[in-house]
């Protein structure tokens, strides 16, 4: 889309004027995007929620007054009070601080796993689309195979395989979550590559001698940006859930590191008594996961509507 502008067509006059025009148009498009985004209350609310979670995760010393690991044996299973907003757990640790610190774990794993999935999926998709033929076939069968594993199972065997490798736990978990993301990214990028490759302006660029690398960077990547952003937003939610699931099973983040999944696993042991002070421990981390993932999913939906020109104006 962005490359159909006359100004960006290679060889369309090397005067400096078009470059201003491009920058100007880019600015307009960004502004246009924000104007349309602001009209989506769901998108705006989700963005605010995510920024709040991100703020809490980054500036946790400001957002939480207590140390998430500090134990207070005077106050085990405390109910919510002005000092402990969300009460304390079985070791007298402040639940609110633990939820806040769990956000950092979730965000960190989310970001790193998306980067891993994209770093591998992008070149694979580009090359498969560019090459076509047998090499494309080989790459895509490998992607199909990765897709055949339920992502949590693939994450589990990667965790087991790399278990003694000396990589720190959080990175390990991020790798295990990121690898199942590779085929999704690769397929999207391959699809865009295939469709863009046939466009006349790409043929024109190739005809005047633009290198494959230049064609990929200038023509194909800008076209894949929108679907990648949408996919990344949706997969971020998946990453948060899978991190919590792995930690819940005792195979992800290890104690005393705070993680929402780990908190739920601990809460599971106490909640059967039916007292509120114990049941509440099973509630807060679950809400934290659900709200975070919900915000990512809703933003992903809004972005898909806004960024996909085919959906523009539909329904």
């Amino acid at each position, binding site marked *: 889309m962005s490359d159909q502008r006359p100004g960006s067509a290679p060889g369309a006059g090397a005067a400096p004027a078009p470059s201003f025009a491009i920058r100007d148009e880019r600015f307009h498009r960004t502004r246009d995007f924000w104007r349309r985004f602001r009209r989506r209350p769901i998108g705006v609310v989700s963005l605010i929620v995510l920024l709040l979670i991100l703020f809490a995760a980054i500036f946790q010393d400001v957002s939480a007054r207590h140390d998430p690991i500090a134990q207070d044996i005077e106050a085990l299973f405390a109910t919510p009070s002005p000092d402990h907003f969300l009460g304390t757990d079985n070791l007298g640790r402040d639940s609110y601080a633990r939820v806040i610190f769990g956000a950092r774990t979730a965000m960190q794993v989310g970001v790193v796993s998306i980067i891993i999935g994209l770093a591998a999926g992008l070149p694979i998709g580009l090359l498969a689309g560019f090459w076509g033929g047998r090499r494309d076939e080989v790459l895509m069968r490998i992607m199909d195979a990765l897709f055949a*594993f339920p992502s949590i*199972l693939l994450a589990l065997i990667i965790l087991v395989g790399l278990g003694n490798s000396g990589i720190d736990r959080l990175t390990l978990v991020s790798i295990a979550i990121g690898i199942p993301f590779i085929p999704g990214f690769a397929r999207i990028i391959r699809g865009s590559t295939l469709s863009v490759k046939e466009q006349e302006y790409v043929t024109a660029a190739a005809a005047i001698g633009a290198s494959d690398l230049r064609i990929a960077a200038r023509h194909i990547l800008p076209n894949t940006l929108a679907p990648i952003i949408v996919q990344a937003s949706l997969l971020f939610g998946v990453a948060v859930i899978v991190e919590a699931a792995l930690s819940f099973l005792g195979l992800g983040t290890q104690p005393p590191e705070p993680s929402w999944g780990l908190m739920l696993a601990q809460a599971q042991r106490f909640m059967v008594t039916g007292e509120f002070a114990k049941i509440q421990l099973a509630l807060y981390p679950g809400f934290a996961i659900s709200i975070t993932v919900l915000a990512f999913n809703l933003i992903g939906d809004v972005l898909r509507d806004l960024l996909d020109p085919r959906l523009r104006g539909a329904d």
Partner: protein
Amino acid sequence: MKAFIVRRLLATVVVLWVVSALTFIALNVLPGDVAAAIMGPQADPTAVEALRERLGLNDSLLKQYAGWIAGVFQGDLGVSHRTGTEVRDLIGGRIEVTVELGILSILIALIIAIPFGVIAGARPGTVFDYGLTFFAVLGVSIPVFWLALLFVLLFAVELGWLRAIGFTSFTDDPIANLKSMVMPATAIGLTLAGNLARQVRASMVEVLRQDYVRTAQAKGLTPRTVITRHAFRNALIPLVTVLGLQASLAVGGAIIVETIFQLPGMGKLVIDSIFFQEVHAMQALTLLIAAGVALISLLVDISYAFLDPRIRYT
């Protein structure tokens, strides 16, 4: 059609071969000594070496892989190093638990998704439609294990209607079996229902724009008849395509949910095998589950071509 099925079958065989290679690489090639992990950090080096020998870890990787695959074709999935039990016997009897859980979850998801999706798709832009979209997104945002815990809190701890853990096989007592399955299957089903409902809604909207629907309306059929006789059935065809993905998600959910409810299925065995470092069991289970998912998507593709005559893969 025959050519399509043959091609699709061959592709599935290739995918399964890659799956086996990936599984083997993940569990045997990546850094990390299985024998040392089994024996623990304080183990005597000679004992570790003896275990390596016994597990065949000193053979070349290619030989190990070939040995494993040859075994798989003969129904030999290896032996548990801890108990000496055949992995085949460990897995046998657990497949049906996971398959039952998977089928029940997908059924529950469909029972929820189809009516809501059809109504929302027939009335796009209404409050009902927005409500469905919101609940659908909510459904995929709630982690299945938290939903399972909430069910336990409500139905087992508070109300005491159901037992939190325990399993009865269907052949022993069908009613007790279903009682032990209802919470786990509903938890997984609810997390699947969201995406399914959106799929139904989208294809309903699509179908209602078709010419034959307009023809049906033009000849004076009531909106109800148009929807039930003409639109509804065609809107369900695309639903088949997402069943492969749903099966994969259901198995993923089963791994955690079986652990929570102590159901003796393949999912719980996966987790147990990890904690006991049972490499052979892990390998066999992973291959089996991935093969199951690949076969389901093969069947889905073929049945889709049958259901929708416009689809012809060449």
